[in-house]
């Protein structure tokens, strides 16, 4: 069976609530069957609106959404067969766990035996067997979350939408639930559209991530690509940590550009600059810049240590480098003995490939 790469398709979708402001602008997004795709972005970036349009609770102002090739704008939510996990779980408080899970099956007029079987299976999937007769109010946050996931999956929907489902959980529980949801996805192969504003959640769980800002998808790619190769300064800034230099392109040749920043010049990888004189923001990941590099690197500068913060597995060092006092380095706490002390001058080096010259901020 070949996978349908356009299982869900947003085609030139616009959305406006008041006729003045576009919340979603010209959205084109293809989601493959069985994919785990995350919509990531700051609040107000339009990601939840996209999800609501897909679920059928909002209608696109312009454009069309296709599910398995069929336009769905005119299909009411209850006929779309899309499962959804809500931010606050939205479990029915007057029904037991069993009744909550049986609800989507009962409205589909399934037989009692079949319902029992499916509910059992769904509960064992989220390891909540034996909780059938509890009320949602008697469950912990994590358990409610699992019930919500089980309920969204119990009727075998083709697509499951999750709207910041882990937002209300504490950090440890959130992390274990991330893995659990990922494993469930892998084992049943359902298409998941996941919305979150937590980048680490997105990086951990997804096949692909769509970074939203200002109603537009800034970048759509796999987690590693997103982190290593951000295509613009918003994505570089939003995903992971990032050292920034604002400057102007002096020269561009052979896939390397020279950028003039306040106190000096650095070599960078021209991603979105084409010609001399353009303004640019150069982005360097903290772990790509090394202290006292052994190998020769084409960028090498001296910096003064301004702050040292101990983080357990690594130490963060804030350095004043080329007049940028916000330059952060991550030094792993290995046996390697580096002379990291406040006020010391040290050598910092990085390869120009890792310094990405992006659009100016």
């Amino acid at each position, binding site marked *: 069976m070949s996978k349908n790469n356009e299982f869900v398709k947003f085609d030139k979708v616009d959305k406006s609530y008041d006729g003045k402001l576009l919340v979603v602008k010209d959205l084109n997004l293809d989601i493959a069957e069985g994919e785990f795709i995350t919509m990531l972005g700051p609040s107000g970036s339009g990601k939840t609106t996209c999800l609501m349009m897909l*679920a*059928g*609770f909002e209608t696109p102002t312009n454009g069309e959404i296709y599910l398995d090739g069929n336009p769905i704008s005119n299909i*009411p*939510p*209850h*006929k*779309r*067969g*899309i*499962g*959804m996990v*809500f*931010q*606050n779980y*939205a*479990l*029915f*408080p*007057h029904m037991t766990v069993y009744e909550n899970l049986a*609800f*989507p099956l009962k*409205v*589909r007029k399934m037989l009692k035996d079949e319902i029992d079987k499916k509910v059992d299976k769904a509960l064992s999937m989220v390891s909540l067997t034996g909780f059938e007769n509890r009320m949602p109010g008697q469950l912990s946050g994590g358990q409610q979350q699992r019930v919500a996931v089980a*309920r*969204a999956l119990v*009727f075998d929907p083709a697509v499951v939408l999750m709207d910041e489902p882990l937002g209300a959980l504490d950090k440890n529980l959130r992390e274990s639930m991330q893995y659990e949801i990922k494993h469930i996805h892998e084992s049943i192969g359902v298409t998941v559209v996941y919305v979150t504003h937590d980048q680490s959640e997105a990086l951990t769980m997804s096949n692909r991530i769509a970074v939203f800002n200002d109603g537009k998808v800034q970048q759509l790619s796999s987690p590693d690509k997103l982190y290593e190769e951000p295509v613009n300064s918003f994505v570089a800034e939003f995903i992971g940590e990032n050292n920034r230099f604002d400057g102007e392109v002096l020269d561009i040749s052979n896939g390397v550009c020279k950028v003039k920043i306040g106190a000096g010049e650095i070599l960078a990888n021209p991603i979105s600059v084409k010609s001399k004189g353009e303004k640019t923001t150069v982005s360097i990941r903290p772990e790509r810049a090394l202290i006292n590099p052994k190998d020769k690197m084409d960028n090498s500068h001296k910096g003064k240590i301004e702050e040292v913060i101990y983080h357990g597995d690594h130490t963060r060092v804030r350095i004043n480098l080329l007049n940028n006092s916000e330059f952060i380095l991550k030094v792993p706490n290995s046996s390697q003995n580096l002379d990291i002390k406040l006020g010391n001058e040290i050598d910092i080096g990085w390869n120009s490939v890792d310094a990405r010259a992006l659009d100016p901020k």
Partner: protein
Amino acid sequence: MSSETQKILTTDGIPLEESLKKAEKKNKIKAFLLVAPLLLYLLITYIFPIGDMFLRSIDDKMVTTMLPKTFKAMEKWDGKELPEEEVFEAFYLDYRILVKEKSFGKLATQLNYEKNGFKSILKKLARKQKKFEEGNYKEQIMKVHKRWANVEYWRAIKRRAPEYTYSKYLKGVDMYENEEGKIVQVEESRRVHKKLWLRTLEIAFFVTLLCFLMAYPIAHLLATLPMKYSNLLMICVLLPFWTSLLVRTASWMILLQQQGIVNDFFVWIGLVADDNRPEMMYNKTGTYVAMTQILLPFMVLPLYSVMKTISPSLMRAGKSLGGTPFVAFWKVYFPLTIPGIGAGCLLVFILAIGYYITPALVGGASGTLISNQIAFHMKSTLDWSFASAMGLMLLVGVLAIYWVYNKLVGIDNIKLG
């Protein structure tokens, strides 16, 4: 081991329970003093009057105290044949005092309630007894009027001997204790109260139903509209609340009367002929219309406060799981509003069952309720004990409804906000 678990001591060696009691005592006294004024107020204005009402409703001492010797003599009388001479003598002695004190009229009224025809023979006896000779009072009294020789009348007197009576309660449901001591219904033409009770229940029920049908969508709208509009709507709901009850009822009179605005409108749009204007006031229609409008906020507010707490995502969840909008409403939203429905219905029903002013003004003869009858006995017939009895019956009825409700729905399922 076991002794350690039995009593836990504080670090100072005092048992923990004792120490806790001591520490909490001050707070308890403070708390009690705070509620004491309210408690006293309730006692004076609520518990005490209800107790007094109850005593008044069963009090029947008047006749007992007027004829002390008679009732003492009657103790031995079995009530089958005419009583012995000593009863007649005791009655004569009691009655002479009453005549002297000029209070025999009251006795006549009371005994006449018991049996018709007492008034005239007592008056006659009052005149004639002045010339009575000593001894053989039975003969002399029986000679005054032939009814005095009728054993029925003496039985009637004996029936009034107890200091307490439940006859007012029987009267409240159109029953009485007949001469044989059996509880029977009054004649068909005089059964007014039963009809009133039923009508009260009927009107209260339908007013509650109408209120519910109208309030549910309003409350839903209030809970889901954006703040800007819901505030305005809320004011519209509460506006009548801030207007005097009398003013509201009077405005309904202006609207509903035969030459009123509603009738004018009906004639204008050609719904009814000018000479055939329907009567919408001084009957049940008037009571229904006015009471529903007046009691509507009592239904809207509890419903609203409950609906406000229902997350809109629940309905969405219902729909996304495949329920049609109706199924999502009926299976998800509606069950969650039941506490509000319970609170609103109980509130409106209890208020409606004891409603007074509105039915008095717009109800006419066919639209009045039991409370109007109570007021009638308080003000017009001055039969306060009967009014008290009916008031208490109403109270017990309300408590019974509350009890049934508690059994069916559970009182902790009520939510007022």
